[in-house]
């Protein structure tokens, strides 16, 4: 059953031919989503070796994210925050609800928002705990872990196929903490143009998403 679902997913992407692995069994989910078993090992038995591998694999991305976000001087602190939160919340990770990459993104994003608040870099904020505002991802109806993993992977590959101007705008919004308005100011483009680039990009990515 899982397998038939996969067959539905895959033909929608032009990248399917280059990834015949996606046709294989659910055990391959681990290969597609190699960080998921590490998070689970931390959850189940507080496995420090797995935790170290997570740090080695994912830590450099967190640092890179922090630098992009303009938090160079706090980059390693953010890495620490995120890793501690991964340790604390590992049991809440459920691969039938989100891929490891989605979950880790949410943890990282929330830690960044938390840190900005602590550093008082934000103003005029309402006082409510961040976790209530930005909850961790979880779908209403659990899908197969394999689907989430494959979907994450396809999305990553579809990103490469986006026109550079669209990809650029999306990356600025997600990775550089910029609103559409700020991206527009920076690129000296009308706000409408920025919004439509994002929308076009999302439509292209959604083509895959919607029909899953």
């Amino acid at each position, binding site marked *: 059953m899982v397998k038939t679902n996969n067959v539905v997913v895959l033909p929608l992407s032009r990248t399917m031919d280059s990834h015949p692995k996606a046709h294989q069994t659910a055990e391959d989910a681990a290969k597609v989503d190699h960080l998921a078993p590490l998070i689970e090992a931390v959850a189940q038995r507080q496995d420090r070796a797995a935790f170290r591998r997570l740090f080695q694999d994912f830590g450099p991305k967190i640092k890179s994210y922090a630098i992009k976000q303009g938090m160079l001087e706090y980059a390693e602190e953010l890495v620490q925050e995120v890793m501690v939160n991964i340790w604390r919340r590992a049991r809440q990770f459920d691969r039938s609800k989100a891929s490891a990459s989605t979950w880790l993104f949410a943890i990282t994003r929330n830690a960044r928002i938390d840190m900005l608040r602590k550093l008082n870099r934000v103003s005029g904020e*309402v006082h409510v705990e961040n976790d209530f505002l930005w909850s961790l991802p979880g779908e209403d109806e659990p899908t197969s872990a394999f689907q989430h993993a494959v979907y994450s992977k396809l999305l990553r590959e579809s990103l490469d196929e986006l026109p550079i101007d669209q990809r650029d705008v999306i990356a600025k919004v*997600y990775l550089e903490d910029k609103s559409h308005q700020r991206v527009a100011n920076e690129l000296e483009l009308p706000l409408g143009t920025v919004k439509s680039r*994002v929308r076009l990009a999302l439509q292209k990515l959604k083509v895959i998403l919607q029909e899953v």
Partner: protein
Amino acid sequence: MVQHHPSDDTLVEYAAGNIKSHLALCVSVHLQHCPQCRTQVQKLSTLGGALLETLPCEAIDDAIFDRILERVDLVHPEPAVKEDANPLGAWLPDGLADLSWRKQWFKLYEYVLEVPKQGRWRLALQKISAGGIAPVHGHYGREVTVVLQGGFSDEMGVYDVGDFVIRDGNHNHRPRALENTDCICLAYMEAPVRLTGPVGRWLERFRDMFLSQEDLASQST
């Protein structure tokens, strides 16, 4: 049935984590009522994950890991299932029951959740008694509303529980609560309400006397 949703850009900025917390609050309250937007945010977070993976790796000193281990020794892992996180819980521990509402107009009440020490925004619950009508008004800034109970209608449409509405300052409207149930909304106002009816306009003449020059300047832009 939720009919009015945050725009795509708002959901994108929400998922990316770069909108102001008041807007995030309104979005997260909407999400509690809207499976469609929950799915959308999930997809947008997956996109965030994919983008994060495209970043180059920045070398980290291994000593950092020792520090992390010291810290994890001190924390308790959280349980697998977190109790239901209600974003409004901090202000409304008992939900919408037994609030001391402040009367503002004939059938219009307000319960303030938060106002800043500096600045003019306002986070509040607004209640219009069943069948009641609020005075015609506009806003000096943006107003974000999420319906928590009952429903209301105005010139633009009908709004039910969970509906998310953003109105900018130059929009005048006259909300009317649906019959039978009191309508309660979460409302974030960037700036004060501006009355625009015949009596309201007369009252508004006096408001200018109390506004600072800076406020007046920001209105004209």
